[in-house]
Structure formats: structure tokens, C-alpha cells
């Protein structure tokens, strides 16, 4: 019976190559792709594509299809994962990215799948030294140990620089066909792709996670701080994740936040999250849909309406009517569109 492996793939070049290397050894492979809710590509697709009009593919599906490997989506976007990113044991990277904790979380799930499937090991496209924190040698060891995958986690691209794993020692995997790639250069991966006939991978590499994005991180931490300040405790829920990646965000006060749609697609997304929030829209002129979270004062309501008016076609009008819908009640505010750009920028999160 051939060995069986679970491959954690994103569809990027490294995980595609790892998949190709393992499959080439005649090992039965099942690919898994983790859905966290923070994938920039998925969000771009929901909004109708990139700014240049192209629609990004699902690269994990594409890689599995190209290499004829069965793939399963694993949805980890629920509360356990969200708790982890709010309280990461190993801390954050440069932004809101708790990469070490995230890897441990996913690998624990991969271990469960390995056990359910009767597979022999898990593999990834990780490259030693490629990322400053999560792919250092010591961190790779921590991730392996904490995930319960000790000896069962193969990194085919860097395997020759690491201790042999159990499947290598048992002869299930031919170690001589694994590689010794390290560092941030992708030259060897590109050469290997040519050798393995892998001709299609996403460009540029990496950068698919909102948690690594500086602007997203500002909004993420603002939300946590506001909840903590309001006595709710630091937490986020699934719908926060969608809203944090949608629209322009303005902190009106510790009690209230305004989110203004930037496109038809974003307006449609915001419409789906009206529950428990106030909905604002200019009347008689085209303009964005906006939501207000929290409990704004009268002054903050007026300010929100002025900002909404400023982002619509009535921005140069003397006054604009903005409807405010809340709990089934509709009010209309006649406001001057906010003209003080510096003020707007000071509120922008």
C-alpha cells in the first residue's frame, strides 16, 4: 500500500512545488486548504475582482486541479480561530499577523485530518528562513511540537536542512529526492518549477492574508480597543472580519464607528450587515451606503451624515438629505457635506 500524505496548500509556488515533489514519489496525496476569512484574494473575488478588472482565481483549487490531487477546504474561520488571533500566545508579527499561532492552529487541524484519513504524514511548502518569524529554524520546531506533529511534518523544499522525519526514516519518503532550499530568494523554486513542469503560479508571491496588511491591522486593533473600552472585552466575530475589509472606516468617538462603501460591490456587502447597525444613504443623489456601529451622540450622527454626503455625488451641493435607518425607524438629516478634509483624515482609521 502506498504511503499517504496530507498536503497543506495555499496554491502559491512553494506549496505547489511541495505537492508536486511528494506526488512524484508515488505517494497518495490529499490536499487541504484552510479558509480563515482573512484571505485578500477571496475578498477581491467577492467584490468583483481587482482594480484592473481581472478576477483572481482560487489558486489552491488551481494547483490541485493542475496536479490532479484531491482537495478539501477546511473552514477554520469560526470562534476558535478568531479567539486565537485576538490572544496569540506567540505574539504578532509586523501587523496583526499571529503567524506562529496560526500555523500551529492549522497544523493541529491537519494532524486530525491525517489521523482521520489514516495518512502517514503532513507536508507543507514552508522554506527555512523565508519568513522572518514563522519560518526560522527554532520556530519551525516549535510549530511542529505544539501541533502534535513531531516527526510527522515534512517540509520537502527544506528537508535536507532539517532532521529526517519519521516517513523519511521509515523509507516511505525518499529523502534523496527532497531539497535544501532556504532563504527569501525564489530562484531555486523557479528553476524547480521548470524541472517539474509547473508553469502556472500566482504572481506576486505571498501577501494573501489581511492580517499582514498595515491598514487592516489598524482597523483590527481599533475595533479591539473600542470593545475593550466599552467594557465588552477584546473579541471579534465573523461578521467583523468582512466589515474590516470593506469600506472606509472612521472612528467618530470611542462609542461609534462609521463605515462607508467605496463601490457598488461594497455597498451590497454592507447591505447584508445592517442588523444591529444604523444605515445611512444620501437621498436624491448617487452615493455610498454606510453603516454606523455603536451609540453615537447627536453631534456624531450629524458628522456621520456629513461624511456620507461628502462621498456622494452631492459633495459640492449646499445641503444633502441623508436618511438614517435604525431599528426600523427612518430619519432624514439635512446636512452640509463635510468639506474639511483634514478633519475627515483625522477620523479615518
Amino acid at each position, binding site marked *: 500500500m502506498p504511503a499517504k500524505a496530507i498536503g497543506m496548500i495555499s496554491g502559491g509556488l512553494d506549496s505547489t512545488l511541495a505537492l508536486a515533489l511528494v506526488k512524484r514519489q508515488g505517494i497518495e496525496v490529499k490536499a487541504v486548504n484552510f479558509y480563515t476569512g482573512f484571505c485578500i484574494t*477571496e475578498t477581491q473575488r467577492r467584490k468583483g475582482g481587482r482594480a484592473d478588472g481581472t478576477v483572481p482565481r482560487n489558486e489552491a483549487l488551481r494547483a490541485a486541479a493542475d496536479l490532479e490531487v*484531491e482537495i478539501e477546504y477546511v473552514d477554520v474561520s469560526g470562534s476558535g480561530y478568531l479567539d486565537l488571533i485576538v490572544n496569540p500566545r506567540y505574539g504578532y508579527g509586523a501587523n496583526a499577523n499571529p503567524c506562529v499561532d496560526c500555523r500551529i492552529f492549522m497544523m493541529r487541524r491537519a494532524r486530525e485530518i491525517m489521523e482521520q484519513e489514516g495518512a502517514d504524514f503532513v507536508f507543507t511548502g514552508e522554506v527555512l528562513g523565508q519568513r522572518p518569524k514563522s519560518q526560522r529554524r527554532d520556530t519551525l520546531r516549535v510549530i511542529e511540537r505544539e501541533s502534535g506533529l513531531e516527526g510527522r511534518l515534512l517540509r520537502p523544499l527544506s528537508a535536507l536542512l532539517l532532521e529526517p522525519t519519521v516517513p523519511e526514516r521509515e523509507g516511505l519518503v525518499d529523502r534523496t529526492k527532497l531539497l535544501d532550499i532556504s532563504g527569501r530568494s525564489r530562484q531555486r523554486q523557479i528553476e524547480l518549477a521548470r524541472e517539474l513542469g509547473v508553469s502556472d503560479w500566482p504572481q506576486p508571491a505571498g501577501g494573501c492574508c489581511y492580517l499582514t496588511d498595515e491598514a487592516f491591522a489598524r482597523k483590527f486593533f481599533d475595533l479591539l480597543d473600542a470593545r475593550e473600552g466599552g467594557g465588552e472585552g477584546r473579541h471579534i466575530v465573523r461578521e467583523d472580519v468582512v466589515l474590516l475589509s470593506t469600506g472606509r472606516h472612521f472612528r467618530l468617538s470611542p462609542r461609534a464607528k462609521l463605515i462607508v462603501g467605496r463601490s457598488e460591490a461594497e455597498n451590497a456587502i454592507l447591505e447584508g450587515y445592517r442588523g444591529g447597525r444604523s444605515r445611512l444613504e444620501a437621498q436624491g443623489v448617487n452615493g455610498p451606503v454606510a453603516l454606523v456601529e455603536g451609540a453615537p451622540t447627536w453631534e456624531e450622527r450629524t458628522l456621520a451624515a456629513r461624511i456620507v454626503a461628502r462621498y456622494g455625488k452631492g459633495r459640492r451641493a449646499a445641503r444633502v438629505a441623508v436618511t438614517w435607518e435604525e431599528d426600523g425607524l427612518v430619519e432624514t438629516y439635512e446636512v452640509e457635506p463635510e468639506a474639511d478634509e483634514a478633519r475627515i483624515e483625522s477620523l479615518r482609521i
Partner: protein
Amino acid sequence: MAEASLPTPTHTVDTSGTLCPYPIVEAARAIRGLSPGEVLCVVATDPGIATDMPMWCRATRHEHLGTFRVGAAWKSYVRKRAG
């Protein structure tokens, strides 16, 4: 293949309102309950299904019979692989 010439699906799963990748997640769950050769119809409002479903079928060796736009939704037909 025109939609009208497709076999009547054994099972239909309506994923309307869910966003990528849930239509594929739901399709994967639904097809486990079918026998080989039976046909699944997946209804989705996420346009990503038009590109995702053919790729998912290629990866999982199910047969993609066709994906059609029907008003604001898409219907995707998949025949479960043998064995």
C-alpha cells in the same frame, strides 16, 4: 452542453447568499451523500462558482457537466465519479 439536455439532478444544494469558498464546501459535503454516477446541482449567487467548479471537478475527478447563469444565480451540474 445546454442546460436543458442535462440529466435531472439527484440532489440540489442551494448555496445562495454564501460567498466563496462555501459553495464548493457545500458541494463537497453534498456529493458525499450521492452514489457514483448521480448528478448534483449546485445553485450559487457567488460568481466565483463559474471558475471554481470546473477546477474543483478536475481536482476531485468528478465530471463537470456545465455551469449556467440563471438570472442572478448560477447553476452548476456535477456527476459523481465512479469509485
